[in-house]
């Protein structure tokens, strides 16, 4: 599964994208955030405050309870500040 990071999530993790392979118990976006936070210090920092993390599955905004089954591309980023 391809994971993308933007803005300060990207800066804290130190990369813009990677392929991850979470275990079967990781079923929702919220589960995935928790699992990602355990992957090392930079991930712990990036995902320290799950409330400030937004997620998209296949380029559509999703909530933490969304299932990740079948997702090709999951993105994590802070609240948006465009416009």
């Amino acid at each position, binding site marked *: 599964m391809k994971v993308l990071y933007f803005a300060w999530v990207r800066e804290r993790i130190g990369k813009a994208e990677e392929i991850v392979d979470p275990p079967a118990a990781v079923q929702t976006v919220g589960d995935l955030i928790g699992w990602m936070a355990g992957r090392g210090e930079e991930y712990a920092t990036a995902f320290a405050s799950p409330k400030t993390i937004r997620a998209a599955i296949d380029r559509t905004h999703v909530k933490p309870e969304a299932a990740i089954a079948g997702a090709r591309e999951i*993105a994590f980023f802070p609240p948006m500040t*465009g416009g």
Partner: protein
Amino acid sequence: MPVPVTIRLQEADFDVSAEIAALTRGRTDVGAVVNFIGICRGNDDGRTVRALTLEHYPGMAEAEIGRHTAEALARWPLTGLTVIHRHGRIEPGENIVLVVTASSHREAAFQSAEFLMDYLKTSAPFWKREEGAQGAAWVEARHEDDKAAARWTKL
């Protein structure tokens, strides 16, 4: 007749007159055009801004703006619609975003332009990094923007 919808994400500046002309030239059914131009300010809540760098999520940004332009077309009787959002480094006084809405009547043009701006602020995957006197920092989302977007939610 299909309603012309243009969505562009680009580093280059845009030409407001050309975008207005694209929605009005050769037509006599357009009675109202509203434009919103968002511009980089040199000061944000008292902090000096030397420049903004806009990061975006290519692919999703176009898709998300496309979902909102489709909703605007479904909610208001528009004759045309253009959204241009710049990315990259932008200095104070430079343009950031343009929304142009055209309709037979002014209410539809005003309301759809406000709707699109409120959603661009809260849902389009763009992030501003501000270069200031003390270094650079990511701009925090404004709670007022969430409230502004929430007013368009159908009951």
